[in-house]
């Protein structure tokens, strides 16, 4: 549920593999260009046009690589799943009974609003004005369930620094459960093209300690001197 940590882990491994493969292929290519120039070679380095054992062996190696990458993909995708983390005991596991905090987020052309079930507090703003962007407040350290929907077209809720994204549809509610290990404020963007002012559909998500969050739910504003 810590999307950033999982992204960094998986992307880091993949980057090493991809870099290794790229260097290997390019080295073979450059080696062939340098060593196999027609002027340098009187005859072909080797004449065979097929070699079944080598080909099948390479296919098996590729199959093994694919199996590892599929495992990497699926196991980490499940590490992000709230239900799976409840059942499991891995580093991402969440203590049983920690029911997620509910935040309802609605996208529209061209901004966002948020409400908090059980509270009269709500959030909106003017996305095109950097100083007046909506600030969606969430508690730090507890699982938060965003219920994402849209009033008009398809949008997408993206927090680049936290490596998380989920689309918002009309006539459909998408659930996104995640945790905010640290307090802080992050820029969010709409990443699904949604019309003329898609460009400016920015917002903030702000994670605060639980006591400040409770105060926010009661009064509709963060207490003075709240940590950013």
């Amino acid at each position, binding site marked *: 549920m810590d999307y950033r940590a999982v992204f960094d882990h998986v992307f880091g491994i993949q980057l090493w593999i991809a870099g290794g493969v790229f260097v290997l292929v390019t080295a073979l290519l450059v080696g062939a260009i340098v060593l196999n120039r*027609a002027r340098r070679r009187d005859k072909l380095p080797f004449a065979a046009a*097929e070699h079944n054992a080598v080909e099948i062996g*390479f296919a098996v190696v590729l199959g093994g690589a694919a199996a590892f990458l599929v495992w990497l993909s699926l196991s980490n995708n499940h590490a992000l799943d709230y239900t799976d983390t409840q059942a499991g005991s891995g580093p991402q596991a969440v203590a049983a009974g920690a029911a997620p905090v509910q935040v309802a987020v609605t996208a529209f052309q061209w901004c966002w609003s948020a409400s908090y079930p059980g509270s009269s507090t709500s959030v909106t703003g003017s996305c095109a004005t950097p100083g007046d962007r909506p600030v969606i407040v969430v508690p730090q350290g507890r699982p938060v369930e965003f219920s994402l929907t849209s009033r008009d077209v398809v949008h997408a809720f993206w927090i680049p620094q936290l490596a998380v994204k989920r689309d918002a549809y009309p006539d459909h509610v998408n659930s996104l459960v995640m945790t905010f290990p640290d307090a802080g404020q992050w820029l969010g963007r709409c990443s699904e093209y949604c*019309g003329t002012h898609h460009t400016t559909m920015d917002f903030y998500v702000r994670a605060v300690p639980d006591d400040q969050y409770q105060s926010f739910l009661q009064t509709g504003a963060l207490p003075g001197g709240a940590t950013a």
Partner: protein
Amino acid sequence: MTATEPRVPHDEPRPVPRRTRTTVLSWVTSTDHKRIGLLTLGTAVTLLVVIGALALTMRAQLARPQMTVLTPERYDQFFTIHGSGMIYLVMTPFAIGLGLYLVPLQIGAPNVAAPRTTMLGYWLYAGGAVTMLSGFATSTGAADHGWYAYPPLASTRFTPGPGVDLWIVGVALAGLGMLLMAATVLWTALVKRTRGMTLLRMPVFTWSVVATNLMTIGAFPSLLVAMGILGVGRVNPDLFDENIWNIGYQHVFWFFGHPVVYVMFFPFVGAVAEVLAVFGARRYFGYKITVVSLLAFAALSMSVWGHHMFSTGQAENDYYSLTSILLLVPAGMEYFGFLATLVGGRLRFPAPMLFALAFVPQFLVGGLTGIMIATPPVDYQVTDSYFIVAHWHYTLAAGSLFGFFAGFYYWFPKATGLQLRERLAKAHFWFWLVGTNVTFFPMFFLGLEGMPRRISTYLPQDGFGTANLIATLGSGLLAIGTVIFLVDVVISIRRPRRAPADPWGGFTLEWATSSPPPPHNFDPDHPVPPIRSYAPLLDLREAAR
């Protein structure tokens, strides 16, 4: 045969094109697959320049924060027509048109099967192109909903105006045209092969076209259904009040949309394979495993579409991740053939070979990042960001277009009987080699830093300025390279130097006939040689040694 440069042997009769009529009417009513193929490729090259110019304008807009080269509305139209135009009107016609021109020649057939249906395919494509682009002539401008046109945005409620209507009709016409053309070329390869040309003696390029056309036939009907859904939504936008039609459209669209990615890739794998073998002066390595890989890849490609929808929350992410990552096995086998051919070859480096060599590592960047975005926890971050923009431009512009240009420089003398200027061709290559990487590599970083795709501008504090400026400078190099390419073509036509029948020492049947080939490809002066393998002309040379 050890010719290093195209040359005209003095003892060979100068090939004379035996066409009696060269009027415009004779071209547009032709039943000759070569003319229909050249019409398709010529139209697509013209559109590559026009639609590429849209991209250059967008790059100008993004060079610095808060530029106003284009209004936001016009920018949205440009990226929509750039994306959809390049896919429907340029890369797919390149892929299918190259097959149309070459497959009958490579299998020793006199013509394509069902030539009138094939010509109808061209007309539908040309009509679709005009229809789609004519949106710019309307008061509200061309379509501006992005190339995949998600509803409800693409309905009349959120995007009124005739631009979208014209776009839907244009895409449907062009898509239907490509479907017809793919079907007749596939039919040709299956039933019109000459004596001795068994399936497992078809050249690698022809096999790549067979796989391409199988995918086209599997996928393009789904595009027509998707355009039908959008069409209903133009009349009755209430349709998209229900989620099922929105998410359903996405499934139907991507069921077309992912195989088409490989339609725009496979013929260039085939072209690169032919070029690497000929300029490596050796039989292509791993023919059978390459054929099996192409077919397996095509079959698997029909099951991966949902990887475009990981962030929708409405797709089976595990399944689509599994099928998408498995594609690396056939793709890896194709690369094995490329590399083994190079490692075991005696290499020459004319322009087609340079483009083919650059294709290998550049497409690889697209392929390796493809595995990343087939992984949901990574895709949740990078989808719909500039990382994705970088990824598919590496596959299409730095990959497939390099494969196309390899094929263009390789087969241009065959198709026209004219030689291109080698120096200009090499200048084109170097501008494009540097230009594609300078343009598209910085976009990976922009995506990771949080720049969404399809934004018409950005703020100074976003921190996207430097990478965007570099990308824009790179696109300038691409523009210069493209001008050199066009100049090369014009000079070669205006000041013709005749090309011989086989300037490169080719292996496949098209090099056994004249340049350009006679109306029915082979005639008593240019008979089909005996065929014993997928490299019949190499067999003859080896036997004569």
